Each structure stands twice: as C-alpha cells, then as structure tokens.
C-alpha cells in the first residue's frame, strides 16, 4: 500500500472544502485530491467558501489566501466565529511574520507553500485530519455506547417485565376476588379474603399461595427466604412452585395432609439449600367448616386472630412453633387452634411488622391496633403507609374477615334485565347510601355499583362475551344489540344492600347476583391494563373505589364492600 492509499484510508470518510480563485490551481488540486475524500466542495473565493462552509458539514478546509471579494484569512476569521475546531490548511506563497501570527491566532492548522509540492500537501492533510478522525471516532464510540446502553436498558426492562409476570404466575390464589360461604346448622357465615403483595424488587424474596383444599378448607402458604434480592428469590420461587405442585397432586389424589406437605417440601428443599441458608415459611390449614386452624410456622411473625364474643374483643398472637427450615433436619410440630369466635385473621411477612418510621418506631407497635380497625389488607396497608417510611423489605399481607351476623339495615331489590330498571335501582340505592355517608362519597360509590350492575346485566344475564362486546363497539352496534337482547331476556338481577355498624363506621355490603352462567374470576387478572381495548375496565373501576369486591364460586354474584365514615353521614 503506497502513502496515498494509506492517506485515502484515513480521509475517505471526510468532506473537504477547497477555496481557490485561480482556475489552473483549482483544476490541478482537484485532480490530485480526487478520490481522496468522500466529497470535495469547491469555492472560487472567500465569500463563496464561507457560504459553502455554512451550508455543509465540512471536516477539512484547504484555502488559498489572496483572492478577490474576500481573502482566505478574512474567510477564516468569519468561520472561526462559528466554528473553532475544523482544521484549516492555508496555501500561500506569502510569508510575513505579521501574516503568520494572524493565521496562527485564527487557528490555521497547517501551511503549505505555493507553488504546491503535493507531497507536502498530503503530509499536511494527514496531520490536519488526524484530530478530526480521532474526534469522529470518539463521537462514534460514544454513540455506539449510548445505543448499547439503550439496548441494555430495554433488554433489562423486558426481562424484568417477564420475570414479574412469571413470578405472579407462580403465586396461586384460589380466593382471588372470591368469598367463602359456609352454611352450617342453618346459618350462613361469609368470610372475605384480601391480600397485598409488595415486592421490593421485581424478583421478590416473599411469595405466597392460597389454595382451596376441600369444602370450606384452605391452605395458606407464606414464604420468606433469607436475605433480599435475587438469591432469596431463587429459594422462594423454588419453594412456592414445589408446594403448589404438591397441592395440585394432593388434590388430584383426593386429600391434602399438612404433615405430608411439609415432609415432602423438606425432602425437596434440603437438596437445594446452601449450608448457611434458611427459609421462613408458614404452612396453614384453615377449616372454616369446622372452625379450626392447623399451623406449622417456621420463624415467621405471629399470626394475629381477633376473637370477639359479644362485646369482648381479644387479639390472639400465634407465635411461630418452629425454627426456620435449613439444610439439616430439625423436628417440627403442627399445632391447632380453634377459630370459632374469630372474626379476623392476619398472616404477613416480617417486611410489615419490622418496618421503621422516620422517628425509629417499629410498625410492630401499631400493627395490633391497625389490624383491629381494618376490614381488609388494603385498609391495613393504607394505615401502614401513612405511618411508616418506604419499606425496606418485601411485604406480603393476607387478611381474612368474617362478616358480622346482623346488619343494621337490609334491603333487597329485584329487577328485570332492562336498562330503565337499572337506572331506577341505582337511584334507590343512592338514596339509601345518602343516609349513611356524604353525597360525594355516595356518588363515587354509585360509580362502582353501576359498573357491577351493568356487568350483571350485559355479561351475566344477556351473556355478552368480552370479545363480542369489543366487536360490537367497534362496529357501533353495541346499544342496538343490548336493546334487542333485553326485549326477550327474562333473567333478573338481585340486589341485596346490607349496612352493619362497624366500630366507629358503617360497613356497606352490596351484593349483586345475576341469573347467568357465571365466569372464571381469574380471567379478571388480565383485564383493564391495555389502553387499546374498549372494554374490561368495569371491575377495575369498582376495585379502585371499593375496599374489596368478592365473587361467589360460580362467578354470578359479586359483593362490594366499603367502610363508610360515620362522621361524613347525613344522619343515618
């Protein structure tokens, strides 16, 4: 490779501006430099050179000095007002100290004497462009790094999104938006379960599962692996997945036994644990039919039970009856407690009770009080949030609440599947609510109730599937379809309003039942987040407004719960 070819390798990506008034020089230089640059712009004098510099991205300027209209140095002076970096090679036969000082002060990079020795010009070009090449390289590297960073960030974000989806998929909650109905000795007892799962990172050290293991019998699992972050989450995910699999197999075989579950889990996890690793877990088997709870908790915070007999209230703290699970075998025990007069139960991870407030107060000191005054995990977490700093650990809360037996007010309304009757029913409900809460609170609540009534009407009794509804909306046929369907529909909607005194508040329960075929409540987990879908937000709106909503097993009856502040009522 000759010198010119070497130079071409450096300059072939650059654009050069050559300014020369004498045609003979222009043609000679143009020929000699042809093919050396990506592009060569030619100007006949300083003014034209300045215009071309302003209008193009120039990497190198080669200019004569003495030219009509504007000299090379005057042009350089103007260029330096807007650009101080571009290298400039001045071609001149005029050597004068004052001239040289001015040229150097204007940042001329190289001088080449006239008549031009092209060897000298090539050397000058090589020296002048080295800096440009380096700068271009640096810029390109920075751009590449930025692109790489953007790509990595996007990649990590996608990975985290997938990991969270996977993590939530591993959690199995058979009581998601469902209530527990127990019919015994001619009495009906209703339990509501709510939960909060707040992992600190996408991949959490906490996990849980709520599984139905028989008629009125539920298995609660809480897992909190040692430490925080990814290492803890690996053990947590392994544990939850294995135990869920065990429950699945046990249900297939017809019976779930707590002892077998713990033994089987231990035999599995001991192979996976490191020598110094521990796992804290709660294995709880609640039999609501027979009012008993069996439990083996391994270094988990105490379970709280609120026992109420007439007006006497007592919080029972069920402390852990076992050490944490380790690689090494340790005997464990299972204990049993009666839940006969228990009206609330709280299971939680230590991220809740061991959190500190700004003035170093541990939440454990407030937990019992807040447990007693809360009706749901959402409400308890609200009290927690109002007192504590940002959590420093993952938080899991599972809250059970038994419905009080006697309402202060009960009103039953039955209507036909017809929009006119729904409107009348909402007016009636609104007037009842106005006696127990402020008009603005009643208005907000009515939004939630209307959503649920409408679901009972269109999805329940009219049996309009979500995908079909989307199609009808897109084609502007939705209202006509409803009108046609309601004309022949004989199914009814049953509304039950119950209001209970609840400490200093009222507890409102509105149950809306349709006569449709019901639905799988778990499908609601996917609803309401895609902003391009025209439907599927009703339940999410109701959830946002209410303290809790609970479906029956079949899915054709929903109960909305909301605590109403007595101070805000209008004399009810």
């Amino acid at each position, binding site marked *: 490779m000759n010198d010119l070819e070497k130079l071409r390798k450096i300059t072939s990506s650059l654009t050069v501006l050559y300014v020369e008034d004498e045609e003979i020089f222009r043609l000679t230089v143009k020929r000699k430099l042809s093919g050396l640059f990506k592009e060569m712009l030619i100007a006949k004098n300083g003014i034209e050179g300045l215009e071309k510099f302003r209008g193009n991205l120039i990497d190198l300027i080669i200019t004569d000095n003495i030219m009509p209209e504007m000299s090379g140095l005057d042009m350089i002076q103007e260029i330096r007002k807007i650009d101080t970096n571009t290298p400039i090679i001045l071609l001149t036969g005029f050597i004068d100290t004052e001239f040289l000082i001015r040229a150097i002060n204007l940042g001329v990079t190289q001088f080449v004497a006239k008549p031009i020795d092209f060897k000298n010009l090539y050397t000058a070009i090589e020296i002048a462009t080295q800096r440009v090449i380096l700068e271009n390289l640096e810029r390109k590297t920075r751009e590449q790094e930025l692109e790489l960073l953007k790509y990595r960030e996007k990649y990590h974000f996608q990975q985290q999104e997938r990991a969270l989806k996977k993590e939530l998929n591993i959690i199995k909650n058979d009581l998601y938006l469902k209530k527990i109905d127990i019919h015994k000795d001619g009495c009906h007892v209703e339990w509501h379960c709510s939960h909060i799962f707040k992992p600190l990172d996408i991949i959490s050290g906490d996990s849980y599962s709520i599984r139905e293991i028989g008629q009125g019998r539920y298995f609660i699992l809480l897992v909190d692996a040692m430490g925080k972050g990814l290492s803890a989450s690996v053990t947590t995910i392994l544990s939850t997945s294995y135990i869920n699999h065990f429950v699945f197999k046990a249900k297939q075989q017809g019976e779930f036994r707590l002892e077998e579950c713990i033994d089987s889990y231990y035999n599995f996890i001991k192979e996976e644990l490191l020598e110094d690793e521990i796992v804290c877990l709660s294995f709880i088997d609640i039999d609501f039919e027979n009012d008993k709870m069996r439990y083996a908790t391994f270094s988990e915070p105490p379970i709280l039970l609120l026992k109420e007999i007439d007006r006497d209230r007592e919080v029972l703290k069920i402390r852990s009856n076992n050490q944490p699970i380790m690689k090494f075998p340790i005997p464990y025990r299972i204990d049993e407690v009666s839940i006969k007069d228990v009206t609330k139960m709280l299971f939680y991870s230590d991220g809740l009770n061991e959190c500190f407030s700004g003035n170093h107060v541990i939440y454990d000191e407030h937990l019992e009080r807040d447990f007693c005054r809360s009706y749901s995990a959402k409400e308890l977490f609200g009290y927690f949030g109002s007192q504590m700093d940002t959590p420093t650990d993952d938080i899991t809360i599972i809250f059970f609440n038994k419905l009080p037996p006697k309402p202060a007010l009960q009103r039953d309304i039955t209507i036909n599947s017809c929009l006119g009757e729904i409107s009348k029913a*909402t007016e009636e409900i609104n007037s009842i609510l106005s006696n127990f809460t402020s008009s603005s609170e009643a*208005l907000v609540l009515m*939004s939630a109730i209307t959503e649920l009534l*409408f679901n009972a009407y269109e999805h329940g009794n009219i049996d309009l599937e979500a995908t079909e509804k989307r199609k009808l909306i897109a084609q502007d046929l939705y209202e006509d379809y409803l009108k046609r369907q309601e004309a022949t529909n004989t199914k009814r909607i049953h509304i039950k309003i119950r209001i209970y005194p609840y400490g200093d508040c009222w507890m409102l329960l509105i149950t809306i039942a349709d006569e449709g075929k019901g639905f799988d409540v778990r499908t609601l987990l996917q609803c309401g*987040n895609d*902003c*391009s879908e025209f439907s599927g937000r009703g339940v*999410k709106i109701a959830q946002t407004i209410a303290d809790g909503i609970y479906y029956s097993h079949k899915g054709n009856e929903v109960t909305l719960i909301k605590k109403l502040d007595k101070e805000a009522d209008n004399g009810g």
Partner: protein
Amino acid sequence: MEAKLTGASEITITGNIQSIDDYQAIKDTVRSVITKGATQITLKIPDSLSMPSSVIGFLLKLVHVDNVGINMLVKDERLYNLMEILNLVSVLNVKRF
C-alpha cells in the same frame, strides 16, 4: 349530568357522569361534533368524580377506530387518579385544569 357544546370541538360535561343515560348523552353530543368534521375533541369535565367504563370504552373506540383525538380536562383529583390507574392519561390526553 349535562353535556354541552362550548366550542367548535369542545364539550363541557357538568355534574357526575354515572348512569347509562349519561353515557348516551355524552355519546350523542360527541357524535354530533364528529359529524361536523371534527378530528380533535376536547372534553372539559369540571364536576365528575368518576367515569363509567362504557364512556371510557366509547372514547377509546373513537381514538383507535375512528382516529379522533381526545383531550380530556378534569378538575377532580379522584377522576384524574382513576385515569392514571387505568393507564389512560396518555391515550386520552388527560390533563388537570
């Protein structure tokens, strides 16, 4: 609730938006503006504390199927929060006023 035309493509909805009749009234008013050729509609909502999913569904259909831009100006913080929870602030251009 009342939905009133307050500009060439601006509709002001006063009162709480809640019932099926409210949905129908909003739909009719918005449709009348679109019929006149509007491709951008501003909904000014000074009072409502909430918004039924049927109205939301109708507005999203306008955006995604009919290519009508929606600008929603809301006053009540509860309604704004609901729009945020439902991830609709950006698609319906929801702003406080």
